[in-house]
């Protein structure tokens, strides 16, 4: 078991180093002309300063600086599309997405590979492009697996997407995905690793329906549904010792709407979870969601705030296995866009994370971030 992990780790690092060299070479060489090349590459860079203070448990207080480079590469031809997203930060180097599509027609794509789960709205709207999201933090509901996200973020398999453009120029987008789900290890979900295919993962099936009242507009509302069979590594955490598997079903509603200078982003997800212990099944149901409002005070300044709430999440058995998951957060922030494609953002939040009791751990957060995109 250990040697398999070591080998997978070695493979992962080789792939990561190779990808870094290729991407740095591509960026440095400047050989890709946007005029006629089917290749395209952009880099999202960010540096974030973070301070956690006034914590209910002083041990939780911390401050750090975190830098991230996210490289996106695409290749397009008439019938084929390729997309790779590689993240390189001071804590990880990982191929986040690696997917190839058969372009069936202009409205229909069939992707194969590793992609972000379509049941997580924020995740599929911003991916790792920190510059494109107004806020610095992500909602707890939509955190990545390795940051105690409660739902799978990465699925490896097939993804079908189809756009129906109606006569009145409104649009319906239908997406369906099936693939390999993350598994539960330690105190988090762990995405499937293609370099360790025997690592024991089960199936994830997700669907999404999106309505846009105007095909050219970004305004949209939609529904998501998912069923995830999550395998459990019972040896990785004493709290998992009697837990055999987790069946997670979700139903979500999201919106992203602009009115003049205002924008509202919201996603609410209802979880119905069966936790299959050796001694029997525990059913766990709860709701998590958030509303983020943004006001564009001028071309360069945006004021924003987000509240993250839930229902029945305080007593959730499943969430108690994810002690770092953010259960509640009330956040305010301001962003300044400058020099074409740079952003400077400040955020302050009153936050509580799940911990392993209904009391939660509470603390304040302050973040400051520079983000940019290079293309």
């Amino acid at each position, binding site marked *: 078991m250990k040697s398999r992990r070591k080998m997978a780790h070695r493979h992962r690092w080789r792939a990561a180093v190779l990808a870094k060299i290729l991407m740095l070479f591509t960026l440095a060489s400047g050989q890709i002309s946007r005029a006629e090349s089917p290749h395209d590459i952009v880099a999202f860079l960010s540096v974030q300063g973070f301070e956690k203070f006034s914590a209910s448990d002083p041990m939780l207080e911390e401050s750090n600086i975190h830098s991230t480079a996210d490289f996106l590469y*695409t290749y397009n031809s008439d019938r084929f599309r390729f997309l790779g997203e590689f993240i390189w930060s001071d804590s990880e180097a990982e191929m986040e997405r690696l997917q190839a599509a058969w372009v069936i027609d202009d409205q229909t794509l069939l992707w194969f590979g590793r992609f972000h789960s379509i049941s997580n709205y924020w995740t599929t709207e911003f991916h790792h492009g920190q510059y494109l999201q107004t806020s610095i933090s992500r909602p707890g509901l939509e955190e990545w697996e390795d940051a105690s996200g409660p739902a799978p973020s990465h699925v490896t398999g097939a993804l079908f997407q189809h756009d129906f453009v109606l006569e009145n120029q409104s649009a319906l987008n239908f997406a369906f995905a099936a693939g390999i789900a993350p598994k539960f290890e330690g105190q988090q979900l762990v995405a499937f690793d293609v370099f360790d295919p025997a690592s024991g993962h089960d199936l994830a099936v997700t669907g999404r329906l999106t309505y846009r009242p105007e*095909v050219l507009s970004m305004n949209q509302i939609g529904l998501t549904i998912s069923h995830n069979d999550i395998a459990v590594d019972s040896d990785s955490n004493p709290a998992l010792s009697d837990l055999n598997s987790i069946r997670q079903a979700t139903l979500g509603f999201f919106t992203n709407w602009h009115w003049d200078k205002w924008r509202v982003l919201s996603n609410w997800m209802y979880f119905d979870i069966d936790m299959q212990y050796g001694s029997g099944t525990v059913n766990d149901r709860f709701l998590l969601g958030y509303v983020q409002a943004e006001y564009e005070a001028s071309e360069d300044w945006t004021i924003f705030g987000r509240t993250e709430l839930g229902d029945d999440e305080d007593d959730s058995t499943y969430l108690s296995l994810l002690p770092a998951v953010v259960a509640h957060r009330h956040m305010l922030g301001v962003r300044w866009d400058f020099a074409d494609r740079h952003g400077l953002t400040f955020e302050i939040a009153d936050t509580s994370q799940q911990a392993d009791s209904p009391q939660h751990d509470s603390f304040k957060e302050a973040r400051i971030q520079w983000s940019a*995109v290079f293309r």
Partner: protein
Amino acid sequence: MRRVGSQVLLVLAMMLSMTASWADDAVVLVCANDGPIADISSLEVRKTYLGISVRIAGIPVRPVRQRDDDRLNLIFLQSVMAMSQKSYERRLLSMMLKYGTPRPAEVDDREEMIDTLERNPYAVGYMWKSDAESDPRVRTIKVLWQKL
């Protein structure tokens, strides 16, 4: 007398420069002179510049942008796309990030734009009307914007 003469010359020079500026105050959509695109609707222009596929005779239209003229780009984005530069750039990046959608080709100047159009019969670009009229290698498909 000499002073009056120089003033008249100055006024004439100003009028000439204004005439040139007025002639520039129209933006047109162009393709290669021998290109097959005869007509394209305003909605299709917006779609193709947002990365949404538009086909003519079954062939995808290739949009091209010119980087070196800020005023031309500003008028195109405000009057045709109804977006700010920031919103437009974000939209293209967002489509690329989400779906791998190709962004419009970008060229450095008008000469490179014309070369690109000549190489791709289904490519379209936008430029000042006066520039389009003075170059036989391109053909105007439609007027996108005109100063009233």
